[in-house]
């Protein structure tokens, strides 16, 4: 099956710093999502991005499907950005979504 690897596993930032989170996947996929899991456990949708680039405020994401990776950029980080960021991939029609192990981010004030 598809393998999803996220890096780095842990990241500590000073408030205001920028960061890049990476997601590598081992096979072609139709769907790719980025989620943020907040301290209360809820998974918040950040981006649905099977290919191309999207931006939403301080966050942006790029997926290069042909090279099987996606990047999540966080600029001017805030303490509320803390939590775990997950990348998840699937085939359309395959039903099963494969999640990476996540990147745990802590932003210091």
């Amino acid at each position: 099956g598809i393998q999803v690897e996220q890096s780095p596993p842990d990241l500590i930032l000073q408030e205001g710093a920028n960061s890049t989170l990476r997601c590598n996947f081992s096979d072609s996929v139709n769907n790719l999502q980025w989620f943020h899991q907040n301290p209360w456990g809820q998974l918040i949708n950040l981006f649905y991005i099977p290919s191309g680039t999207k931006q939403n405020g301080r966050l942006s994401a790029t997926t290069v499907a042909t090279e099987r990776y996606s990047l999540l950029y966080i600029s001017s980080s805030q303490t509320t950005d803390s939590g775990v960021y997950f990348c998840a991939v699937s085939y359309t029609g395959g039903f099963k979504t494969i999640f990476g192990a996540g990147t745990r981010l802590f932003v210091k004030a």
Partner: protein
Amino acid sequence: DVKVTQSSRYLVKRTGEKVFLECVQDMDHENMFWYRQDPGLGLRLIYFSYDVKMKEKGDIPEGYSVSREKKERFSLILESASTNQTSMYLCASSSPPSHRIDEQFFGPGTRLTVL
């Protein structure tokens, strides 16, 4: 906005009890999913459903069953709760593959403790 709700945020049950976790979505999604999340093990799929009364086993269905009598509601049942089922349970829904976009939306989660 898609909204997925779960019946409880926190639940404490005793070993051997029958436990019902309920999930409701309001976007007419056909696909619904139950995951559990444990430290170091990530998100694991328990069951999913692609239509009313249809269900498919995920990666870890043992000890669980599901029910989907209405399109908007997907229930997870622990027939006889055990301590190793203490976990965070997450429900999700998504639009069907025929819509090309297969984006999952999650509920707030239920932290279940089995004593």
